């Protein structure tokens, strides 16, 4: 089970990498008058802010949801979670300029802990 989980994870990390390159190419075609650097920064930002946090979080249900589901729903969920927490943190006084880097990093760490607990250590949260 553990090996199966790791094999799947490795395969999907590669798939996400491949998808990143494909989306980069798609953006370059759509915005062909734009510099590659701007496109690279935009696509990277979208992945960091929305795609990755949601996708990794949905790994909690990786047996029940397909890759496409985790990717698409994960992107929407990433928007939801990142923006809800960002809004509230702003009200608590943490300037929005820190959120774009900080929040996805925190979500990725938390999601990883949650997934490891469920699938590796077999100790789901209560």
């Amino acid at each position: 089970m553990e090996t199966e989980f790791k094999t799947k994870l490795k395969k999907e990390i590669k798939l996400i990498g491949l998808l990143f390159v494909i989306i980069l190419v798609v953006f370059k075609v759509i915005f062909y008058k734009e510099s590659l650097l701007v496109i690279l920064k935009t696509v990277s930002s979208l992945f960091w802010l929305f795609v990755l946090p949601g996708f990794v979080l949905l790994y909690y249900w990786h047996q029940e949801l397909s890759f496409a589901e985790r990717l698409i729903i994960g992107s929407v969920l990433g928007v939801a979670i990142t923006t809800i927490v960002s809004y509230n943190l702003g009200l608590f006084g943490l300037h929005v300029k820190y959120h774009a880097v900080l929040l996805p990093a925190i979500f990725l760490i938390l999601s990883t802990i949650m997934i490891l607990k469920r699938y590796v250590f077999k100790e789901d949260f209560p």
Partner: protein
Amino acid sequence: MIKKKHLEFLFLLFVFSLLLWMGVAGVYQNKLSHDFPHGFMAMDSFWKLGRAQNLDQTGNQFYAQEHLASDLEGVVETYPPLLATSTVLLHRLSGLEVYDSIFFLTVLFAVFAALVMYLLIRDFNKNLAIIAAGLFGFLFYGSFYIGHIWGRGPLIIGSMFLVTIFWSINKLKLKRSYLLVGFLLAASFLSHPPEFMIAIAFIVFYFVIQLLIKRFNFSELKTTIIAVALSLILSLSYLPIFLIGGGNSGIKLFTVITKSSEPAPYALDFSFFLIFIVIGAIFAILHFIKKKKINVALLVSLFMLLITYSNYLGNAKRAFQNRYFWPIYLSLFFALGIYHLAKIVIKKWKSSYSLIMGVGLLILFLIFFHQPITSPGLANEYNWDAFEWIRAETPENAKLYFFYGDSYGQSSFLSSTFRSSYLVNTDDYVKALNEGKIKQHLLTKEIRMKGKLPYKTGMLSYGSYIDDGVRNYTVEKIEDVCEFDYYIADRGSRYPELANYNILMLNTLIKNEWIEEVYSNSLVVVLKNNNPGADCIGN
């Protein structure tokens, strides 16, 4: 060799790319970064931009910009926050301007919503999901596209969450699915509360149907109640603000209207595609009656059809606005219609036929319907450059007076100056022109946020400057032109008489030794009044 599942993934990539291209490539002229806002074609676009810029500057969304709050201190921002938040996060990380991020994201969110609907239909039938994608192109066509170019971003992000809530209702059996549903419900509330209300109405509808067909699931109800409670906790910081101010959007509930006061989608906008939608809807109803089985995708389509026609039941404006997403909500009907008609000829259906149809329909749409908008919108390089100069070079408490400009009628555009701005009433200005007079006192509109101008009084309690009588709802009154610090006017216009009258006005003002020209480009002139209050017209 390409496997079947790879083919589907490639198809989704194709749909994603094509929709993104349809939605943004034309308006953005195939560039992501611009010197001035592109895709802003109405007043609302600039209201939303102003809120995002405010967040970017101040770091939070608690207080409204003072220049939009009638220069009152501590006025609380009442507008739902998530569009501004997502915009500023993207802006901060990618380096795109705030105005470039906001329009781009509304298109991207609509594309996400389409893909989520695909997944929801796929849980019902994969072939139908693929065919349904053939209707998605309409999202960026004609009156369906209005939501994007008229600045209805909060509705669009809210609708994206709404569609995803529908999907999550289909997954209530997942362990801890309340987390999914709860976060999505909160996100819909913080994006656009009417979408949250529609989601709650759907949840009620879903369980009523379960009861009616005797398939009630108590465990699902329990999960949903926990999810709703979680969403309220996550929305707690905004809930009291919404209750005092955000809910007051000027829309009258329980008013029956048959025609929208602004351009809105109507069924005939689907052209000949409508035939398939109608046939599909009939099949959907028959299927539902015959099977007596819960199918979320079918329920969603029927429910959203009701919602989008609820203008006849008193849901006035919101019913029309939700029609922007008809290409998503009605896509299952469309697919059912096509599928059943095709089955008359093709007895044994293969999944490759669905793929051919899905791609073919999108291409058909592209050839016969797609008309990209290439105009950037209200802003142009000249007035935007003038606004940037004002933001950089004038004091923060400066009061600006705008004479006629072709784009200024969408008056929130002027809020991009970040200064207290006032705009001459065009009718009064034309009257003065016709009388051949230069008037010192003109009917003038203060550019100000809507609502009750709330301020914080306690932990979760708020007062209102409107209720206190400090201000009233009226934003238009006679103003003395000489009281202002800066005058802004365009010397070119669709109406040459008005442009000439602007020039006449500027010439009159500049005759005074205390008024000087401080900025000009080939369109816009800015004059500075160094002695506000002194007689500047001389009549």
